[in-house]
């Protein structure tokens, strides 16, 4: 468990660059969904991917910084309740760190199930618990409204994180050579 919260320079750099990609994807790369006026945020696929590679601290910070920055650029100020929820979701994604076989050159079925279970738990906690509670506490929003919004967000973001995260992890594991197997030809 200690490993989960160890911060090396590599983690910090991955966090900084990951947050930069998150910001960019969050603003520019959305996948339009079949329901009008809604879209899937590809950024959660990225944060799930980075969280699985670098752990909860990196994951949480990537989404927190990235979401806060893109909100600031677009709206002038971060929308704290959702920024915090984003951070919480991606922090929880990070518990897939070292629980999957991604570094061993094969992202197998078991890993896919582990990753997606954790990812769905993260999204449910963030969007059906954290975000609505904060919205009620700060803005006194009606409970039925924020929970309805939360359920939609949880479903949409689970799909983004699930589909894109899984595919990214599969692609990444394909690039990992098995230990001691590289030799010159």
């Amino acid at each position, binding site marked *: 468990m200690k490993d989960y919260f160890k911060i090396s320079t590599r983690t910090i750099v991955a966090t900084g660059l990951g947050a930069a990609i998150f910001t960019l994807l969050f603003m520019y790369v959305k996948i339009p969904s079949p329901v009008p006026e809604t879209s899937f945020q590809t950024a959660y696929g990225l944060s799930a991917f980075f969280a699985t590679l670098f752990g909860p601290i990196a994951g949480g910070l990537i989404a927190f910084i990235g979401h806060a920055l893109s909100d600031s650029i677009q709206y002038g100020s971060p929308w704290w309740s959702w920024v915090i929820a984003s951070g919480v979701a991606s922090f929880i994604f990070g518990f897939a760190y070292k629980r999957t076989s991604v570094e061993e050159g094969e992202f197998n079925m078991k890993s896919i199930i582990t990753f997606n279970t954790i990812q769905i738990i993260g999204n449910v906690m963030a969007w059906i618990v954290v975000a609505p509670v904060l919205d009620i506490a700060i803005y006194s929003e009606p409970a039925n409204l924020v929970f309805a919004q939360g359920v939609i967000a949880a479903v949409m973001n689970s799909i983004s994180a699930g589909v894109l995260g899984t595919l990214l992890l599969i692609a990444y594991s394909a690039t990992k050579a098995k230990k001691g197997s590289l*030799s010159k030809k």
Partner: protein
Amino acid sequence: MNDKLIIEFNNFSFQYYSQSEPTLNDINLKIYAGEKILIVGPSGSGKSTLGHCLNGLIPFSYRGITEGSLKVKGKETKDQDIFTLSKVVGTVLQDSDGQFVGLTVGEDIAFVMENDNTPIDEMKERVLKVAQMVDMDRWLSASPYELSGGQKQRTALAGVMIDDVDVLLFDEPLANLDPATGKKAIEIIDDIHQNTNKTIIIIEHRLEDVLHREIDRIIVVNEGRILGDMNAHELVSSSILIENGIREPLYVTALKYAGVTVTPEMKPGHMNTLDTSAVNHIVKEWHLSVVKEEKRKLNESILKMDDVTFSYDGRKKILENINIEIAKGEMVSIVGRNGAGKSTLSKLLCGFEKEDQGAIYYLEEDIKGKTIKERAELIGVVMQNPNQMISKPMIFDEVALGLKLRNVKASEIKERVEKVLKICGLLPFMDWPISALSYGQKKRVTIASILVLNPSILILDEPTAGQDYKHYSEIMAFLQEINKTGITVIMITHDMHLMLEYTPRAIVISDGKKIADTDSAIVLTDHQVIEEANLKETSLYNLAKMVGIEDGTQFVQNFIDYERQVR
């Protein structure tokens, strides 16, 4: 110079955990304080690993098995830590964008002191002083986007020197610089050596460029072993360079072509120490005897830019009144310093940007109305970094992507992909993951993925950047093959060897204007063009002057012609 030993390798070996064989084998090397050392070797020779051992990245960041001993300033490196070692050995990395972590020049120079918890006033004072040493003191609040490659490298150098290290280690300092900036960098390093008497270690494969200034010793590394340890004159007179795939200085090649036996007595290590007085007549005779190459006659125009002007913001013109005509089957270089407008030019050709004025013709047809996708079937562009193009794990899928996205039938895709893979020499690897390929092979995959769309023009951005002589030759031979199949090849490049050896014609862009469009031999001997394009004079020209040949440009042309005949 004193005799104090500062670095000592004793029967030192290192093997990365991920490798099945040691990368460094039985290294024995002594370096004394104040020496200036060059380590040369082809890619994968172990020269970078040797550098990592010195600055502590090995064993503290890269894990592996170490044998033997490595002492820096009398202490075993493995008993210290990376922070302690970095106070003795300061490293300037190859990629100055990666090393430049601060948001501004001042912050980046101060980075080490910030980490040392230095009080702000003391830090500001010292930053200013070091910035003055590398002539960056007027740029302290500039961000990396406002700087040239040379300025970024000087910032990196200042960021290392601020620590008053004993050893300065330069890892491929020339890799990302244009020829003129590279020359300047070597001069700056030499000045620092003269003024501070620090130990300097340069790791580089561009030998001739480093030998622009004095070097005490050159260490040749290949396959993880030290194969030579000698001075520049002995090295270029020996056969070690050619045997190990390192390019010798061009003037040495020219002397050899002329039939001169190059000996250490001629002091051939540096152009400015070379003494040819005894062999001038041999070179002159050879010059007169070279059989001129017939110029290829290419008449049919395939691409024409007619008075093209472009600007991003409607004010500052990036390209101005550009007229270029390229013939079918040509192989051309487009050169110019960073920011001159070369990349914008290729973006216009591909339709990524649209010209404000003028027109671009493909086979007499104005292609203004064609979409990016349609143009890609006429003009394909290959980016510099293959990693920026590769989006599939398997080779076949990557190459097939452009066809799949165009809804081509599966049977036709298979046929076309296989044909292209065969041309690119990748057929045996068809079912391999791309990650298992070398850099050069990846480059081929990206070229294949463009060629599969059957364009008749191929534009390549710096196709040989960062490649050693062997890989450079492989990539260029491959492009020549492609060119022979009838495809027109346009290369955007800084590489003067590439211009000399592979493209008879060079187009020079400076400040958005075309300033030259002629034979490469003429471009590389014209002072004014050289200066405006940040190139440098080829040493062949200097050699011609030295032996007393009036027409230096003709000498360069003869060299090119002769080389084509013997290659």
